[in-house]
């Protein structure tokens, strides 16, 4: 039974990150192949918060997410400001996540080189960097992620993602994904909207990184390789463009199934590759593209219970 729980937890963690990618790629049309970098940033930051400053665990996750979000401006601002096509952003995300992994691998070296610095800040930073353990990994973190934590986080993540994509900000990013020029002509501030979408998606990846860290009770740069980024992308591509429920299901299938059928593991990426092409040609909107989660039944209950005039937008 424990093993099934392990799969559910791993699926849950990947769903949170996949939702982030869904918002960025599915809804705003920005191709990203480096989300593992944001997961790493979030993971390490929330681990530091809990282990070094013993900040309460949920708050640490939020701080981790916020840190990843803020760091997303490093690549977001230059790529979006220069009004370039999506390609530059995609390449920048790949470069970014490799650079993050390189930095995380070197924390011990960095720490040692800072050791003889005079200022107390230098000393503090150096001891922290050495504790991060570089390639050795950041060890014995509190093993706090259990199945309930993941279920609650996934539920919250789905709720807020739905709230965002149905909000005015979300609809603006959908417009950007469909015709950037027309959206701008109609008054949508491209830079701001894209940066917001990127911040949220990096936030989600950061939280997912934190969950992963507290599940393995250990963090190492080798957890956040390019295969992790392509898994997340696969979840959104198969799940469906402009849909949250699609990536939710596919993230489940993509993590669960290979785990169960371990025997033909090396075929996994080959099948993904062919599926990418087939999905793009025959069903570009993916499994459940454009299928909005229809919470209207929630709205009806809400009315019945509170009798308040709150008619959810008619989604036909």
């Amino acid at each position, binding site marked *: 039974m424990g093993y099934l729980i392990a799969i559910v937890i791993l699926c849950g963690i990947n769903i949170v990150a996949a939702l982030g990618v869904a918002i960025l790629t599915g809804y705003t049309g920005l191709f990203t192949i480096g989300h593992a970098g944001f997961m790493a940033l979030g993971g390490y930051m929330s681990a530091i918060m809990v282990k070094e400053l013993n900040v309460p665990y949920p708050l640490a996750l939020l701080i981790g997410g916020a840190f990843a979000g803020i760091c997303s401006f490093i690549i977001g601002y230059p790529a979006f400001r220069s009004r370039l096509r999506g390609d530059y952003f995609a390449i920048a995300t790949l470069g970014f996540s490799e650079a993050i992994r390189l930095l995380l691998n070197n924390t011990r070296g960095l720490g040692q080189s800072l050791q003889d610095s005079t200022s107390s800040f230098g000393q503090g930073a150096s001891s922290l960097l050495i504790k991060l353990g570089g390639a050795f990994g950041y060890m014995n973190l509190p093993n706090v992620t259990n199945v309930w934590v993941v279920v609650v986080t996934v539920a919250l993540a789905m709720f*807020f993602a739905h*709230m*965002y994509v149905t*909000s*005015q*900000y*979300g*609809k*603006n990013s*959908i*417009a950007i994904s*469909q*015709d950037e*020029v*027309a*959206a*701008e*002509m*109609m*008054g*949508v*501030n*491209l830079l701001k909207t894209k940066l*917001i979408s990127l911040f949220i998606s990096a936030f989600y990846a950061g939280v997912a990184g934190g969950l992963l860290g507290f599940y393995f009770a250990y963090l190492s740069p080798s957890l956040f390789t390019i295969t992790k980024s392509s898994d997340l992308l696969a979840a959104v591509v198969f799940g469906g463009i*402009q849909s949250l429920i699609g990536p939710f299901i596919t993230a489940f299938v993509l993590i669960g199934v290979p785990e169960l059928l371990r025997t033909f593991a090396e075929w996994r990426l080959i099948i993904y590759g062919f599926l990418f092409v087939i999905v793009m040609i025959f069903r570009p909107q993916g499994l459940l593209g*454009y299928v909005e989660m229809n919470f209207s039944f929630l709205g009806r209950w809400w009315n019945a219970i509170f009798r308040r005039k*709150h008619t959810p*937008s008619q989604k*036909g």
Partner: protein
Amino acid sequence: MSEEILSIKNLTVDFGGVRAVNDVSLSLRKGEFIGLIGPNGAGKTTIFNLITNAFQPTSGEIIFKGQSILGKSPDQICRLGISRTFQNIRLFPQMTAYENVELGLHSTPRYSLAEAFIRTPRAARIEAETRKRAHELLEMVNLSQHANARASSLPYGLQRRLELARAMATSPELLLLDEPAAGMNEDECKELVQLIRQIHNTMGYTMIMIEHHMNVVMDLCRDSLIYVLNLGSLLAVGSPAEIQNNPDVIRAYLGERKNGRDNAHA
């Protein structure tokens, strides 16, 4: 009439060797409706693109409500009150008609990001208002019954009207119509003229319309001016009657008449 809202002074733009717009000046008062005509490649759409800052002019001034809008980005210009339709329709294909129009209303979100996540009563109220306004606009261009149809699935004429409604949704003061009647037959044109006139009267927008259908132009600009562009420069300005009889315009449009037949009506 009222004070001047838009003034373009010696606008010039070169693409590589080609001079697309050459020293065009134009001025418009609030609520005026002018036509902009000229043969293909005369630079009409280029002027629209310059106004909405799709790209920068080589020289010249564009003053809107007293301030130059050269450096501004297209979305800033839209917020200042200039909106447009496109020569080749650029609706949001996967969105429904309703969502297309609604986009114009919330392109600058009117509640904070935090309120987006936790829909406060204020945000809910703004959403409700936006919904009402969007349905009103659809009503104006009588597209209400197609509210939930996907934009790309609508017939051509309806897409034109949807683009008009979306442009109006950004509550502009200056509305640029880029060949709204393109590809329409006679009675569709009549319907469109009637719709545009009604919008012009009720909303009081200042409007510039590029159009090839002469009857649509002549009808809508009955009591206002028509600017004629040819090879990037201003050929003539005048009332519909003057323009129709102006020899340069005819020559530009119909080219040299070998056998000298004069003022043949387009």
